[in-house]
């Protein structure tokens, strides 16, 4: 059984991806006989380059992606090293962790509602402090530099990276290192950054790459917060792909290849940045800098972490308030009237999307976790990890812009008559869920101290008993976190659900995005709340179960 697990996983990841990529690659070079492209040509690239502002679009995608990833990693590193083990850390951790459950679109709306000229911050300060009786004509959301988009990505990626880091901490004992760096006279932030962070980073590196890939190629946040004249490249690709003029698809496919290039360049730049950071780290260590005056840095990282939580939760509370608001004019900080009308009107239409969301996310996540566990267990038995090639396979779905290979995939499914079926949807969701489950689980899994297993085998336990009695319970926290991540990923999927489901399987997210386009803040409030509730439950389970199960096993819980 286990023997076939890796093959099976590779098939699930690669077959849709290969077919889909071929469906992107060939049209990019002009080949798509069904719409009149029957010979290879570079014309689509010529048309692409003739697009006004193409370079700018690619550049903003690259820059916002890299800057937001850098800020997110920096905040997490400084916060973990500066605060791990303190009461502040525990408080903020509990505050921030649920943010991971917030789908990207909902977080983007939340942020926009806070910082827009007509947003809550402006309302709180108006008119008494600002003198505004009407919203100022300021370009804050959709700004040309993409600062709002960077902010949105940061508040969304910081919780993700923090959670992945926390799941890795049991394998890199921070608390054990603290007395050591203290005894060497280091401040805790710099000391832990030098002593522990490199090991931690190695474990979360894959997750960081996934963040870069997402941040440089995302559509859902960029469409709400990002620049519009021109939009980032991925947003424009979606537009071209959906253009009624089918010849635009050649351009879209060529653009998808460029997007792959943009993401690749971002990863390359990041790897250079890693080297640079490592060199700076060594230099600091060599010079014997102790970093004892760290109060400002510690304070800043704590504030950044708290701010991420406040902005999103404040924004979500605001969305909830909008969902029950009657007329609510600027600069009132509170609606003129409250009404449950929006909820009354929305609830009947929520049942079907909710059921779809739950079944698709549930099935794709459970199947993915089982497959990943089987693969890891197989790897455990054979001692072969599949190396970098296997890793690349896992990565591909996260590196190729969704829209690029989904079109080709849709063609394949349509010709087989498999589109708009629950099975196809679950399968396509698994293409995205499985890598995240794998990425979240691999590092802690491989960092497991195998001497526990050696002891169990020495005591005569069978391999399967070792798995069920030793490995799985000790890894439960990491497994559940990976499950919750997978669930959240599935809940947040928009394009695959829409394209492969042919719209027949509306989920909370597809409904939210479709409604979000209308800008009706009250209905956005209803759907954002629901979008939030589902993954939140998953993460609540992920953190509650180990705490409950191992309440008398302190080493497993906290590590």
């Amino acid at each position: 059984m286990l023997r076939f697990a890796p093959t099976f996983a590779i098939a699930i990841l690669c077959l849709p991806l290969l077919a889909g990529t071929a469906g992107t690659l060939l049209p990019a070079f002009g080949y798509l006989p069904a719409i009149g492209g029957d010979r290879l040509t570079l014309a689509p690239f010529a048309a692409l380059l003739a697009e006004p502002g193409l370079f700018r679009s690619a550049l903003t995608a690259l820059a916002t992606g890299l800057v937001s990833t850098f800020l997110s990693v920096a905040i997490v590193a400084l916060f973990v090293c500066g605060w791990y083990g303190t009461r502040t850390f525990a408080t903020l951790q509990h505050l921030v962790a649920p943010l991971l459950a917030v789908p990207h679109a909902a977080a983007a709306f939340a942020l926009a509602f806070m910082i827009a000229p007509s947003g809550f911050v402006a309302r709180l300060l108006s008119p008494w402090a600002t003198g505004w009786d009407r919203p100022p004509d300021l370009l804050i959301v959709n700004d040309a530099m993409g600062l709002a988009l960077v902010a949105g990505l940061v508040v969304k990626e910081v919780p993700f990276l923090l959670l992945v880091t926390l799941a890795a901490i049991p394998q890199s004992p921070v608390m054990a290192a603290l007395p050591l760096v203290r005894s060497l006279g280091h401040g805790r932030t710099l000391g832990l950054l030098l002593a522990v962070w490199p090991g931690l980073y190695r474990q979360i590196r894959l997750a960081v790459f996934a963040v870069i890939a997402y941040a440089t190629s995302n559509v859902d946040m960029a469409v709400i917060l990002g620049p519009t004249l021109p939009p980032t490249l991925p947003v424009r690709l979606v537009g071209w792909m959906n253009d009624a003029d089918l010849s635009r698809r050649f351009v879209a496919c060529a653009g998808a290849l460029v997007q792959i290039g943009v993401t690749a360049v971002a990863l390359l730049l990041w790897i250079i940045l890693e080297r640079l950071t490592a060199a700076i780290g060594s230099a600091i260590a060599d010079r014997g800098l102790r970093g004892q005056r760290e109060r400002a840095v510690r304070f800043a990282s704590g504030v950044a972490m708290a701010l991420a939580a406040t902005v999103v939760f404040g924004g979500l509370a605001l969305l909830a308030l909008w969902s029950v608001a009657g007329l609510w004019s600027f600069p009132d900080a509170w609606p003129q009237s409250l009404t449950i009308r929006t909820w009354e009107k929305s609830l009947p239409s929520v049942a079907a999307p909710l059921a779809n969301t739950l079944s698709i996310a549930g099935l794709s996540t459970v199947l993915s976790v089982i497959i990943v566990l089987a693969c890891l267990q197989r790897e455990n038995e054979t001692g072969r990890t599949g190396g970098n090639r296997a890793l690349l396979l896992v990565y591909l779905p996260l590196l190729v812009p969704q829209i690029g290979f989904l079109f080709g995939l849709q063609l394949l499914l349509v010709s087989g008559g498999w589109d708009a079926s629950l099975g196809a949807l679950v399968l396509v969701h698994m293409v995205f869920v499985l890598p995240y489950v794998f990425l979240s689980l691999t590092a802690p899994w491989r960092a497991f101290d195998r001497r526990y297993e050696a002891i169990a085998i020495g005591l005569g336990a069978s391999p399967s008993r070792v798995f069920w009695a030793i490995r799985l319970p000790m890894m439960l926290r990491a497994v559940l976190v990976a499950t919750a991540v997978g669930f959240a990923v599935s809940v947040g999927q928009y394009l695959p659900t829409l394209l492969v489901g042919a719209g027949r399987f509306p989920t909370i997210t597809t409904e939210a995005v479709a409604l979000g386009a209308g800008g009706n803040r009250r209905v956005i409030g209803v759907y954002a709340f629901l979008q939030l509730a589902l993954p939140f439950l998953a993460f609540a389970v992920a953190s509650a179960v180990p705490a409950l199960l191992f309440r008398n096993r302190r080493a497993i819980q906290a590590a």
Partner: protein
Amino acid sequence: MNLRPILAAALSACLTSALSAPAFAEPDPANWEAVLAEAKGQTVYWNAWGGSTQINDYIAWVGDTLRERHDVRLVHVKLEDTATAVATVVAEKAAGRETGGSIDLIWINGENFASLKRQSLLFSPGWATSLPNWAFVDVENKPTITTDFTIPTEGLESPWGMAKLVFFHDSARTQTASMPKSAAELLQWAAANPGRFSYPQPPDFVGSSFLKQVLAETVTDPSVLQQPVESVDFAAVTAPLFAYLDQLHPHLWRQAKAFPKDYPSMSQLLADGELEITFAFNPAEASNQIAGGLLPDTIRSFTFPGGTLSNTHFVAIPFNANAKAGALVVADFLLSPEAQARKQDPGVWGDPTVLAMDKLNEADRAAFDALDLGIATLAPAELGPALAEPHPSWMTMLETEWAKRYGVAN
């Protein structure tokens, strides 16, 4: 009426095709009892823009009613952009799916219709004119019902509602009398009130329509707009339009460094007091928003005395639809006086009817007469003349040229 020969021709055409290809019988709207029987138990996937809750709620009501009366299950597939549906049909054609397609009905008009018609991807021949409720349609006085953006509809799409470009403002802030009465005056107004006007970013449908409105007002010979854009000197015809936009943009909201996404977003900006003048393609839009508590009841409507764009929106059935009979039943119900009157109620949606009042019986006419069109809705006589939509190719070219000139503003 010269309908009868067409009906007869359609009938005989259907009969011939039915005889020649008995295994591939398409539903024939002329035999309505058979259509109703075939539709029983079918599920109709209706791909329609889902950006407005009022419209979504109306479609849900249509679904409930049809399930009750005809055992037809209606599923509203909510789209962000109708072009997605066009793309899906084309993708299915490409994959060789000639039957059992995933879309049964599309809310459509203009360039999307033109594109599907040109590629022969619509259920044909002219089924729409054979629907029982077609008898009530105001073909005589509403030319846009038979000519969609200059393209003859030929019964390939069934009319659903009328659209006319109407502007809105808040009378609590400004007098209705001081509102601009033409595109030229709008420019002066914008210069005097910087940051208080904008339009949805093309290729948004309503945003592109604003471009066409200005084009129609600035062009020297309006008849050239009825021709395909390839046959005229685009640069020369549109030069006044782009000169206008060049002057207008510095005075727009956010100095034209960003634009509202669509017309519901503009309503939100109007409610927030960011924008002073907005517009929509539905004369009752403001009344509808007032009824829904989204806009204050001080919002009023105005149009340009020289005329504003006007068109019709339709539903069409793809060539490979899986539930054609069910789709026909839906299309026919949408044309019924009952459904049309409900649609025109500003408390529901406020979308103007495509029916002719003088073709209705007294009870149905009374239902329309009883409608309170709302405090912010202009009477039909105040709506001003209707400007014809240009050929669909203009829209595409205008959008491309707009993106070239203003798409990289930063």
